[in-house]
């Protein structure tokens, strides 16, 4: 895939400023600010109900923020995501996965990945008119789309299941497919919402490798995760939320040592004993 032109490393790809979200009387996200650096893996952690998924939904345009700013420094210059409609955010280069997997279960694995490349393909079809007559340009575009899909299928080890319906895959494979599908949109920022939920330790391990592979290809990653093993090992930076407020922000080592984090989230005991919470995210 053609590597998108990215801001230099150590420049923020995503800037969240004073983000505020109210649902009626409930303040789910209360003036949260953080940066996600280009080429970094930024983890957002926090206890249940801390507002992590709300932050994700705000970044990806599923909610409109009650206040604050979200700016994406993508290849096309700074883009205010808080004032952009949902599908345009994805077109600007923000891809996401969902806490409860959202595939197209009745379509094959390959079709799932081609739907992800809808906008590229649709542009090549002359908005459907040219393609109805099978013009050459569309065939070329489709070949390229299938090639890109094939690359991500190889990376996620799903190539031999390409022609099976997505709904028939085992759980772990569905998680990988959702990541592959997000990557087929050629994003600059990939938002993963609890990708390790429901995976066994070996699958979590493979997932961590996959995430690092994606990062190596130039895509920045924003990650919500409960599996502390994964978070502490692969993240460059960890943002901790509790009750909608940011309580810590730093490297994994700094966060680990932060007393407020230990009190709010990791518990009073030895942090190495913190169990992975795989099942809870699958609900």
């Amino acid at each position, binding site marked *: 895939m053609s590597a998108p032109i990215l801001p230099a490393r150590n420049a923020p790809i995503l800037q969240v400023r004073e983000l505020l979200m109210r649902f009626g009387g409930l303040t789910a996200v209360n003036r949260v600010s953080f940066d996600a650096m280009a080429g970094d893996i930024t983890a957002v952690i926090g206890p249940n109900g801390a507002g992590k998924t709300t932050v994700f939904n705000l970044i*990806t*345009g*599923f909610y409109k923020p009650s206040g604050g700013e979200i700016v994406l420094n993508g290849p096309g210059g700074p883009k205010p995501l808080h004032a952009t409609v*949902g*599908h*345009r*955010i*994805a*077109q600007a280069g923000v*891809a*996401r996965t*969902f806490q409860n997997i*959202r*595939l*197209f*279960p*009745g*379509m*094959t694995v*390959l*079709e799932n990945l*081609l*739907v*992800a*490349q*809808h*906008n590229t*393909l*649709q542009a090549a*079809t002359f908005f*459907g008119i040219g*393609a*109805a007559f*099978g013009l050459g340009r*569309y065939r070329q575009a*489709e070949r390229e789309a*299938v090639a890109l899909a*094939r690359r991500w299928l190889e990376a996620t*080890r*799903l*190539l*031999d*299941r*390409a*022609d*099976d*319906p997505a*709904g*028939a*895959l*085992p759980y*772990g*494979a569905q998680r990988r497919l959702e990541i592959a*599908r*997000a990557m087929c*949109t050629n994003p600059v920022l990939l938002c993963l919402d609890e990708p390790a939920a429901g995976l*066994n330790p*070996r*699958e979590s391990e493979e997932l961590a490798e996959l995430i690092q592979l994606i990062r190596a290809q130039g895509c920045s990653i924003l990650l919500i995760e409960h599996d502390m093993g994964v978070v502490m090992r692969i993240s460059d930076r960890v943002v901790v939320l509790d009750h909608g407020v940011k309580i810590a922000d730093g490297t994994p080592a700094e966060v680990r040592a932060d007393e407020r984090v230990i009190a709010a989230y990791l518990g009073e005991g030895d942090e190495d004993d913190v169990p992975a919470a795989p099942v809870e995210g699958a609900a």
Partner: protein
Amino acid sequence: MSGASRQPNGSHAGGVPHDDDGVPGPGEMGGIPRGPEAPAPRPPVIHALRDAGLAALVAAGLFVPLVGLRTDVGPAGGGLILRTRWADVAILVALVFTGRLAMNLWSAFRPAKRPRTALRAAQLTRIGTFVAPLFLGFAVLMPLLPWTTRYGLDLGVLVLTYVMLGWGLNIVVGLAGLLDLGYVAFYAVGAYTYALLSTTYGLSFWICLPLAGIFAAFAGVLLGFPVLRLRGDYLAIVTLAFGEIIRVVLLNWVSLTGGPNGISGIPRPSFFGLSFSAGGEPGSFADFFGLEPSPTHRAVFLYYLILVLALLTNWVTIRLRRQPLGRAWEALREDEIACRALGINVTNTKLTAFAIGAMFGGFAGAFFATRQAFVSPESFTFIESAIILAIVVLGGLGSQLGVAIAALVLIGGFEAFRDFEEYRMLVFGAAMVVIMVWRPRGLVSTRRPSVALGERKAISGDLVGEGHG
């Protein structure tokens, strides 16, 4: 319709490393059976008798007041008298009892259900690949067969009209998953477009046909805008209302549409400028080709016209399904939120589905107007929408072949049961219930993938979404 032959294999090719790969866990080593055994069953005959007895009791409770007691006008012409019909009740209860008993016994003693093996599925798909060309061949040759009567030809035109409408609605309901109960509105828009343009401005059928499609597509977008945010039941209700609005407007806008009197004297289509007049005067079809003038010529022409229009609908749908747009429709049916996260403009995608589906409804409407030479709001009632939707649901959402077969069964069945007179709807309704019990996802429930790396394997209908509006 199916193309190259395919051989789905029921089992998935292995190879994905996954921890559920059959390595026994520690608890499974000691001969502990995996999964609970079924509890010891009660003797099946006794159970069946008990269950049938219960059903008979319920039936008796229902039928005693409903059938057993009847009020009639007394012989003196004055008051009502109560008449009892216990014999009828007994017969009905006995019927329920024996029916339920037979069902129970059958399910208890039938041979173990044969699993749908790969072989059987392969056989089914092989049959499937032959069915479509067979139907097509028959449809093309039908008017030329010597035993085809005028009645058969007219019935063929009727069936093909519904095939076309079914295929058109299939785009909206089957592919995009948007439940549309007002499809007949677009049919009406197409019919009135042709009727008005041809009687007012004298435009020919061939100019009006695309215009009818465009107007109907415009109506589709018009409907689409307000309902974009609605889903499921709410969408269905608004589309239903839209269908009624169009009909009521046609009924009440007397100065334009003639109100309940409709529009008559709509010109018939011509064959490249040659008319189908019965007299056979110069410039007519019969005169030009030196044939005996016959009203059959027009019927045959109309038959082929609707066949071509229907096949056009089918061709466009099949092409679009393999395009990004068609794939986006199906993705929308599967999961709208995921579509949005992938950068698909959900609004536009829904609107195109409405517009393209409506366009084919408009074409069919123009054909309807030219065939009947008369249109009135009576032809565009809700029951038409219901029939078209029933065709799509019965055929299997998204399946082109299924919809065609369902149209044949439904419309053909309507005619075949004509002898039953007032029981026609009863027989018809029962037949539909039976089909839906037997095949809850429609006649053809599997979905064919639009693209594949290797072989195309049919996807079971259980996995395919039905859409939520």
